[in-house]
């Protein structure tokens, strides 16, 4: 019996492409962009949830484990807009949800 036949609501998921900083790629042992499956509606928080499930070594490196708050020197951009402080309430833009653009995790500039 499938989940749908059992009465559970079907869950739509989409593939989200994430640009991860080089040091986190090394930590997660991935090359290039990371792709995760995320249920709609797609928010930054949902993408980070999926990223941490797929790559547990990244837990705690993007957001604080206790508070869930974004680490201060991480920025998050999508389709040319800054989503660093829009984690849970704002759906990501269509080009990211439709896979045409990546979600970009960026280490804030610091130093000279």
């Amino acid at each position, binding site marked *: 019996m499938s989940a749908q036949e059992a009465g559970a609501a079907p869950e739509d998921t989409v593939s989200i492409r994430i640009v991860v*900083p080089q*040091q986190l790629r090394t930590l997660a042992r991935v090359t290039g962009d990371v792709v995760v499956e995320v249920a709609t509606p797609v928010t930054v928080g949902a993408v980070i949830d999926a990223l941490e499930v797929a790559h547990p070594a990244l837990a*705690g*490196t*993007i957001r604080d*484990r206790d508070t869930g708050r974004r*680490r201060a020197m*991480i920025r998050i951009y999508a389709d040319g807009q800054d989503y660093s402080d829009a984690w849970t309430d704002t759906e990501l833009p269509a080009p990211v949800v439709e896979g045409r653009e990546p979600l970009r995790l960026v280490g*804030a500039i610091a130093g000279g």
Partner: protein
Amino acid sequence: MSGVRVLVGTSKGAFLLTADGHRERWQVSGPLFGGWEIYHVAGSPADPDRLFASQSNGWFGQVVQRSDDGGTTWEPAGNDFAYEGDPGTHLYYDGSSRPWTFARVWHLLPSAEDPDTVLAGVEDAALFRTVDGGRSWSELTGLRTHASASSWAPGAGGLCLHTIVPWPDDPARMLVAISAAGVLATEDGGSTWKPANTGLRSEFMPEPEAEVGHCVHKLVRHPSRPDVVFMQKHWDVMRSDDGGMSWREISGDLPTDFGFAIEVHAHEPDTVYVVPITSDEQHYPPDGRLRVYRSRSGGDEWEPLTDGLPQSDCYVNVLRDAMAVDSMDPCGVYVGTTGGQVYVSPDGGDHWTPIVRDLPRVLSVEVQTLP
């Protein structure tokens, strides 16, 4: 022939330096974890192939790495360092109160008996332990909840627990050192603690001989004589003969008694090494000469060791965890500098030579003596 493996933590990665027992020809591997600050790399005495590294940076926080093959391959272990309960507050530089906030692991102390058990000293100051090889970490809460903790204030490097000194024959007893709280002692495995700073004097405090608040930079002891403990304080080199309950100054004829690192010879419990640094405002050696000082009498009388160390135009620092000894015979002594040099003396300090000259800023040096 047996050999040594030197574990070097730097501001931009870790390096492993290996040699046979002559300690003359070295192989250098690294950088491991390139670009990250590696505050400390430590090997398990119970299993020398088991290594732990504290990896952190301001962007991505803390990672603990683990190797089970002597540093050839590494896996990220746990990085969840959560203070138990309401973490409370400590003093900040300006006298205000700030909540306890985890920043990084400064120091890792693998158990002498169990390769899965490690103590970690962290910033903001607290003590954590893993018993599953680094996957999960639990706080020993009695330290951070000590009655004096709300009065602790950070040193220039942060409010860090940087030194852990257990008794070899009784792991329930240990000393820890915190900048700038001072020394605290436990006799019940970390449940309860008491300050152990009697005899220390620190002019930067309103009450220079207060029970807590001292900027202790490093402690060391010889395992055969656990009640004798040597200390490099912010200023002053100190000694305790009663397991830290009281201290007396042994700076003697040192050119300056400011410094960070202190070590004791592997086979001579009264032979102690320090690296005098000009002052708290001038973190480089006096007169541009890098001199390790050795006392063979447990302090007070010191001799400069200079052969092979730069004796002009040298303005590097040697940080608190950047001096180590091996247990070969003769004992080797190792010093890492903020200029990226790691020097070795394979003869107890008489002659020095650089193993490497151009690493990033060296934060820590440990040595494993391998069978």
